[in-house]
């Protein structure tokens, strides 16, 4: 089987979510990549180094610069004439593009796969991860999105893929990019961080989040996260949100501070290797899944922890 993996990049580097998608695709067969955008030579070269990659298709065109699905999906659909599976990371970009590709191919997409069980059989979460479905496709081609935390990341070196330019495609003329407000953070991205420090509603304010959570994250070189309750209360921006409606993470260590552990939040972090919970309510559901639990007032315990760690 020949797979075509969507390479998510920021114009200069391949994003980590792509590497998990490559691993998933390699379980199906030969791995080809698609790098689309403008001035993406550097990305294409880096992509060709990813272990196990056979070919890198490069579509360098201004129309592909901002991942507009109206322009990208026809390009992918055309390339799918010579591939059997389109595999995209389940990022907001992958989720935006893949179903549009699937419908153009008259294929029923399988979203957010957790494992590859056979050539056409996969597991995926339903009901916010409260149930796991094993599903089998009967379509001639596959369109998949891959949950990044469920697969190991492919190595970024050791590969020697052949880079090949794709000339086709262009601007469909129905959509345009206006602008973006991407939070610039001088710390690891939530979805690829080894350690995450998350704060919840118990913090009570944006100031307390800055005062209590940020120093611990700084000291550990960790990414910052939050529960939906903390986001809704305005303590931090939405892109900090960990949970079913936010980001799905699986770091080595996840600190849940002042987070009670709603199903919604657990769905986003329960695959973390070690979960550390600090909460003054000893009956908080978070303690039912925490590896290390500390029942304490976070306003005393966290600064103490920050000082001693």
């Amino acid at each position, binding site marked *: 089987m020949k797979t075509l993996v969507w390479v998510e990049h920021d114009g200069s580097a391949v994003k980590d979510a792509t590497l998990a998608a490559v691993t998933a695709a390699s379980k199906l067969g030969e791995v080809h990549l698609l790098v689309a955008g403008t001035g993406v030579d550097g990305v294409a070269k880096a992509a060709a180094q990813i272990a196990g990659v056979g070919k890198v298709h490069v579509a360098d065109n201004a129309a592909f610069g*901002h991942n*507009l*699905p*109206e322009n990208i999906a026809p390009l992918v659909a055309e390339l799918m004439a010579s591939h059997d599976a389109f595999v995209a990371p389940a990022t*907001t*970009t992958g*989720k*935006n593009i*893949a*179903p*549009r590709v699937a*419908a*153009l191919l008259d*294929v*029923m*997409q399988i*979203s*957010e796969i957790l494992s590859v069980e056979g050539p056409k*059989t996969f597991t995926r*979460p*339903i*009901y*916010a*991860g*409260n*149930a*796991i*479905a094993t*599903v*089998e*496709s*009967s*379509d001639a081609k596959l369109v998949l999105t891959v949950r990044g935390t469920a697969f190991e990341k492919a190595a970024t070196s050791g590969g020697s893929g052949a880079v090949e330019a794709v000339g086709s495609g262009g601007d469909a003329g*129905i*959509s*345009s*990019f*206006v602008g*973006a*407000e*991407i939070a610039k953070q001088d710390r690891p991205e939530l979805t690829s961080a080894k*350690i995450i420090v998350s704060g919840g509603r118990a913090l009570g304010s944006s100031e307390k989040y800055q005062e209590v959570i940020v120093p611990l994250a700084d*000291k*550990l070189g960790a990414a910052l996260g939050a529960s939906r309750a903390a986001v809704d209360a305005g303590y931090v921006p939405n*892109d900090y949100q960990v949970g079913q409606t936010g980001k799905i993470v699986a770091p080595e260590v996840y600190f849940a501070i002042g987070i009670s552990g709603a199903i919604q939040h657990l769905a986003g972090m329960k695959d973390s290797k*070690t979960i*550390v919970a600090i909460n003054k309510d000893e009956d908080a559901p978070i303690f*039912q*899944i*925490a*590896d*290390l*639990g*500390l*029942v304490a007032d976070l306003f005393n*315990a966290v600064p*103490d*922890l920050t000082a*001693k*760690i």
Partner: protein
Amino acid sequence: MKILVPVKRVLDYNVKPRVKADGTGVDLANVKMSMNPFDEIAVEEAIRLKEKGVATEIVAVSVGPAKAQETLRTALAMGADRAILVQTDDDVEPLAIAKILKAIGDAETPGLVILGKQAIDGDNNQTGQMLAALTGWAQGTFASAVNVEGDSVSVTREVDGGLETVKLKLPAIVTTDLRLNEPRYASLPNIMKAKSKPLDTKAPADYGVDTAPRVKTVKVSEPPVRSAGVKVADVDELVAKLKAMGVHS
């Protein structure tokens, strides 16, 4: 401008899903069912556009069992003008739903179709994008702001790492994210009024759509259970345990 709003009847988001013992799915017998929360946001956004004078008519559509009428009545009570139920007891996949919606769109010629970004049962996150592909229209997914300006709509999208704004030519597809708005509750008089609003019942065959599933569910199981670890007595013990794991500054 007419707005089409597809809605789905799903297990209420406050109810914890239980996997059936025989592994065939999630138990939906005798549990509370409601409108998919993202679809409520879609209905609300359509109503706000009508209140602003941008939209003239809101048509709610559902593909599902006879009981999905209740979901459509909820949409009507919130402020939709009429409803179409495409009645079927089959579990219809996003691709087939998108095909039905495409056929309804051909007949209704809406300026906007606003959908929830995903239904909280299947979590597929596909129908809007698929409908956009089938119609050839532009798509603004995961919307946190929607502004119609003349013959285009600007959509602010919740993307990994922040927000992104795109401008789409109308007609267009929008899918809603959580922060787009806070849906209203239907008032009692409006619930009464909704009972007399028009609701047409159709079948998938009326639109020539084959709803046979392309993806077979082999089994549904409980997720792996994570057990509780240990409670530590104080910060010092926590620090010691973390350091033993290699976690320190």
